[in-house]
């Protein structure tokens, strides 16, 4: 579904990524792991249209998406979450998810100002769908809470609900378990499985090895900007190079 071909990224004098290529298969959960500084977040930013790669191509369902800005990727079916959750802090939980439905609604400036009849219908639909996604992630009771006041774990759930509201075909998650305690991480694992079961392909960048080994169907390992290995969790666990790269690395 997602095809990375020869991605190279050079920042000034630093080569962050060097000729990275791999393919993500649909309806799977793929994990991208690697020691700190391996280039995982940079790769993410390139795929999701925030950076432009120095060379190489990114193909999403066969279409070259290099250079397509982030806002258009949402309507093409790709969405991402952030490592330091980027919530709309001053808006309520429900409103955050309603913004997630932006690309699936269409009332414009003019129509909204004049509150034309179809706008009211659309608002109702947005409201109801947003509540559904809150229920999906289990935070519907918090609908009217201001997002900035949420505890971190719930904030993570909100970000996921908002991303799901885009009804993406692929969701990229940047360290979703970061900052979660072990119970919350279990809840996260179950949620990601449910997301996959809905037909969404999931790619995650993670440091939490238990989570990765638990839920991922395939794993890609990066080290120092290059792809080190690729395979099932079992294969990766037994790969000597991977073990060597991680020796001494704190989780």
């Amino acid at each position, binding site marked *: 579904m997602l095809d990375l071909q020869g991605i190279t990224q050079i920042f000034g004098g630093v080569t962050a990524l060097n000729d990275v290529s791999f393919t993500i298969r649909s309806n799977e959960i793929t994990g991208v792991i690697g020691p700190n500084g391996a280039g995982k977040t940079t790769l993410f930013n390139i795929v*999701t249209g*925030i950076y432009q790669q120095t060379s190489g191509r990114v193909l999403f369902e066969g279409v070259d998406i290099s250079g397509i800005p*982030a*806002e258009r990727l*949402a309507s093409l079916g790709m969405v991402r979450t*952030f490592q330091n959750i980027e919530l709309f802090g*001053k808006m*309520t939980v429900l409103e955050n998810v309603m913004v997630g439905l932006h*690309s699936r609604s269409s*009332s414009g400036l003019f129509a909204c100002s004049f509150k034309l009849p179809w706008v009211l219908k659309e608002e109702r639909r947005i409201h109801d769908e947003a509540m559904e996604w809150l229920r999906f992630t289990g935070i519907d009771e918090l609908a009217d809470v201001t997002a900035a006041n949420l505890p971190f774990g719930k904030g993570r759930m909100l970000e996921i609900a908002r991303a799901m509201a885009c009804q993406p075909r692929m969701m990229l998650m940047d360290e979703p378990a970061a900052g979660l305690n072990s119970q919350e991480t279990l809840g996260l694992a179950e949620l990601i499985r449910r997301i996959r079961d809905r037909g969404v392909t999931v790619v995650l960048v993670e440091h939490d090895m238990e989570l990765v080994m638990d839920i991922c169907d395939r794993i890609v390992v990066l080290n120092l900007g290059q792809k080190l290995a690729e395979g099932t969790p079992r294969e990766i666990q037994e790969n000597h190079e991977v073990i060597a790269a991680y020796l001494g690395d704190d989780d």
Partner: protein
Amino acid sequence: MVSRKANGFSGVKRELAKYLLFTLCVLLAPFAFLDSYLLNVLVFVGIHTMLAIALNLLLGYAGQISLGHAAFFGLGAYLSGVLTTTYSWNPWLTMLVAAVVVGGMAFAIGFPILKLKGHYLAMATLGLGIIIFIVFNEWVEVTSGPSGFSGIPNLQLGQLVFDSDLKNYYLVWCFVLGCVLLSVNLANSRIGRALRAIHDAEVAARVVGVNARLLKVQIFALSAMISAIAGSLYAHVMTFIAPPSFGFNISVELLTMVVIGGLGSIYGSFLGALLLTLLPEFLRFMHDYDIVFYGGLLMVMTIFMPGGLVQGIPDLFRKLLNLRKGKGGNHA
């Protein structure tokens, strides 16, 4: 930012009630102030309210700073004034033309200018405002330069000529009421949410599909359009316009009104406009102190009441009430 309970339908009823109350007060106010002078001041409160709301949409909702908004006000005034007077166009037509032309200009310049953020955007809008101000002053053949442009006819509807304070009051406030209605609708809509999302976390908004670039420019253009319409109204009400009414000082006054009222609160902008238009009238001795006053006010509000009066006054009440409770209810 004022937070309200989300878009439940009780929220809609509350907004409607607020608006009806506001409209009622506006319609009845002249009867309390048939004293002509105050009525005249209230006409300007109306114009300032429109300008403050326009700036608030850009600054309070979308989070983009503009220090040159008086320029759009002036462009609307001069376009409308010159076309009506020098070229004898129909005044209502010139208002429409002013709105479209200024809106179009803002749309075009919006793309490069809104790529800038924070301080740089502030400086750029400041520079733009000053360039336009200089044009008002120097293009004497068209604008009559520093001495001002006079002879602008009043607006009229059929036989009704808007030439008295009372008539101008209703004329201007009709526009203001329309502006408030549209802005409140916009603020509570999908677009309003998208704007606030851009303000809070632009990258995240883009990632879920909000076309931040386009939306910022659209709001910038809308904001300019409203300011231009206010300018046109101003020209026809005053029948005389001069460059000092459209300079940097005015841009700062508008900014102060929005900040005092509360960024992101439409009714707050009305409050700010009301206060800052009335105060100089009541404190005539303040004339030389007005600059110091604005500066001090901006600083104090930013430090102590960043949410503006709309948030600050209820907060103050709450604090006072809590203090009372803490004292064991000694005071009745």
